[in-house]
């Protein structure tokens, strides 16, 4: 069921959707969005690519193993919880940098935590979708 139109479209749509997912992730702290939905949207981008070009192509494009994305995400969240401890604050206290950065906005441990959620959700959804798609191919 290869469709040239969908395949070509997915190539252009993928970066756009990914940028949108990052946008959602970054605005999350002040407007609707956040790591969870950002990760879901990013996963949807790869899922679209998968439907258009097959699971092998999608895997090649992703490069990283989904399960590693999950591990990285979980590790980022845990690390963000321990950063304040190193600074002598309570466990999981949010620490923010005073300066505001262009595009990203304020930087702090909750943002890192949310980034962990983003990667974890992306990893989980892709792991499940890839596994299912591989089974379908067999």
């Amino acid at each position: 069921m290869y469709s040239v139109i969908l395949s070509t479209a997915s190539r252009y749509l993928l970066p756009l959707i990914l940028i949108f997912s990052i946008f959602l992730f970054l605005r999350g702290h002040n407007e609707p969005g956040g790591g969870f939905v950002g990760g879901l949207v990013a996963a949807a981008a790869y899922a679209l690519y998968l439907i258009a070009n097959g699971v092998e192509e999608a895997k090649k494009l992703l490069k990283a193993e989904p399960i590693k994305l999950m591990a990285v995400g979980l590790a980022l969240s845990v690390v963000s919880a321990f950063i304040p401890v190193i600074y002598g604050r309570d466990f999981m206290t949010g620490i923010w940098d005073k300066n505001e950065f262009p595009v990203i906005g304020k930087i702090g441990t909750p943002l890192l935590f949310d980034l962990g959620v983003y990667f974890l959700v992306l990893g989980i959804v892709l792991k499940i979708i890839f596994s299912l798609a591989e089974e379908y191919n067999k």
Partner: protein
Amino acid sequence: MLNLLIIGFAASALAPFIYKRTKNYFGWIAASFPVYMFINFILRYNDIASGQIIRESTNWLPALGINFTFLLDGLSLTFVLIITLVGSAVFLYAGSYMKEYAQTGRFYLFIGIFMTSMIGLVLSDNMITLFVFWELTSISSYLLIGFNHHKESSRKSALQALLVTGGGGLALMAGLILLAQISGSFEISSLYSLHEEVVSSKLYPAIVILVLLGAFTKSAQFPFHFWLPNAMEAPTPVSAYLHSATMVKAGIYLIARLNHAIGGTVLWQDTILVVGATTMLIAALLSFKQTDLKKLLAYSTLSVLGILTMLLGIGSNLAIKAFFIFLVAHSLYKGTLFLVAGTLDHETGTRDVSILGGLRQYLPVTAIASLLASFSMMGIIPLVGFIGKETVYSSILEVENFRFLLLTLAVLSNAFIVMVTILVGLKPFWGKFLPLPRTPHEAPIKMLIGPVLLSVFGLLSGIFPNVFIQKLLDQSTISILAEELGITIKLWHGFNFVLLLSFVTLLSGIGVYFFRKKIAHIINKMSLSRSFKPSFWYDRILNGTLSFARLQTKVLQNGYLRYYIIFIILTTLGLAGYALFNIPGIDTLNINYEITIYELIIGLIIIASTLLVVTSGSRLKAIVAIGVVGFCMGIIFILYSAPDLALTTFAIETLTVILFVLVLYKLPKYLKLSKPGSKIRDAIIASGVGIFMTFTVLLVTAGEMQSELKKYFAETSLPEGKGRNIVNVILVDFRALDTLGEITVLAIAAIGVFALLKLRLKEGDK
């Protein structure tokens, strides 16, 4: 101290990555980590020796009284020094020993986590923190025993160790919580002033039993001893480190640590004494049947653990002194002998003591280390083991009741230990040379430093006890007994009765060695029926649980998704429905809502699509219709100004449809198999749920909701959470711990889905 632990966990997590790049000299890099820890703690030696107690606290969950509180006193410093010293030897040793294994990086990850948690365990003053580290050592031990996970025996032994120590861990947690109920705080040090209250409490017997269950399972005391010999499935460095020098002493550490707070009663002392003495004797007897180097060492470790427990049970000043010296001596010589056993296995290809012999010309350095450790273990002057054994005997001589019985048992067990030592430490090097599977060579330098270091340490602390252990002994006994002993350790006490006992032990040990085959024969004849073996009961309980689980699975999880859903829904309906109808006010429900045109339209679309799902003859149509329902829900969220929920719903619905499409082609052709009867049943259940949910929602929204939370979050979101989106601030800041739990569950669920799919694939292959 918390920072050191964080460094420890971080370093462990990085180990596999560093290993990949520096395979050949990774042993040195790895060993620098325990050495670094050792140096960090030895620098505080003078403070501790002069009687200072260092206490550090970082808030974790202060509202619940759970904090990272660490306490460095004589007792914890002693343990930390043992852990890091033996750790340095083992980490370096493993650099060479583990080369042939695949996944060595992972090995260092596990053992690094273990070392860090073990240090955390002995430093913790907060009971919950202690418990967390306690469980971490159990888990890392499980991973290390099962390191050769392709072998079934490894997996089985690992599971056994985990179930026994983990089960004990649960008992311990219950005991600690009860204890905290009395004292009102989770800090162990807060218990010291409350000794009277704790001991006279109604809960005291329960506390003692639960805490001791935890300690006895961890330290492999009878009747939980069986997991330790099986744990020898682990690679030898693990046996040397976890299962002789450190982890199995955690239970004993706990008894020593709590002794001052909850000990001193007849119940406490006698239970510990009897269990310790039983373990000491039974383990010594059981060691007879063994011919495997590591099994022999394991049973002698059990016996020593029994002696240590027994000494705590005696509880006199002298017994605590003996406990301390014996603890240090044992860690040093048993660590050495395990490493030597590993070297022998590595160099000759066998661990069978009946064919090992005459190897001193091939492995001269290893032979010397082994000789020193063996002499210490046999209690020969001038090694530290000699002082240990002398003090054990003199402390038993002080006991008032059953002195003679205890003394006989101790001499007997020690004689057996001497026999084991000759078999393990001396015979392989000085016995007759027999043909071996491999031509032996001296071990590489990395595998020599560890054993030599530990055995020389045993010699030095025997000759100069006042330099090496005197000060720590004083401070440790304060931690255990809350008073200073003022007893000095000496190597030579003159010719007295105790020295005579040492001689008797040694001679009878040598005697036992020469008649070991005959004695083994007698013991074999005596062998009791299997229902006396605790491992028999372990197997029965495990098999019983598993067959019950199978039965339950057959009933509840019969492989038909529809029945799963029916079960879940009916249970919910039954439980929640019962609760709902018992709430007053159910009859005064006034339905008075204003419905906008949008809501009406969306509601109609939802109803129409639902009808389509139920009646549709094609799967694709049904899936699309379900998707429509989902999107309508999203629109409703928007109408009620919850854009976050709507956004997430849209994303989830999209992905759900994709997932459905992926499995769609896999499914068999769509057939109508349901009988009219079951259709009616399903319809009734489905409408039941619908009505129930409607009622619940109406009921919940009927009353005015009084919530301080909403106000609190709205007010503090921007100033404290630095964000205007309250939902997100709650998720990643205010309630981040919940989120962390949720994403962990999600990750596990994804791995579960993956495993399920792979399992199905394999079945298809057959």
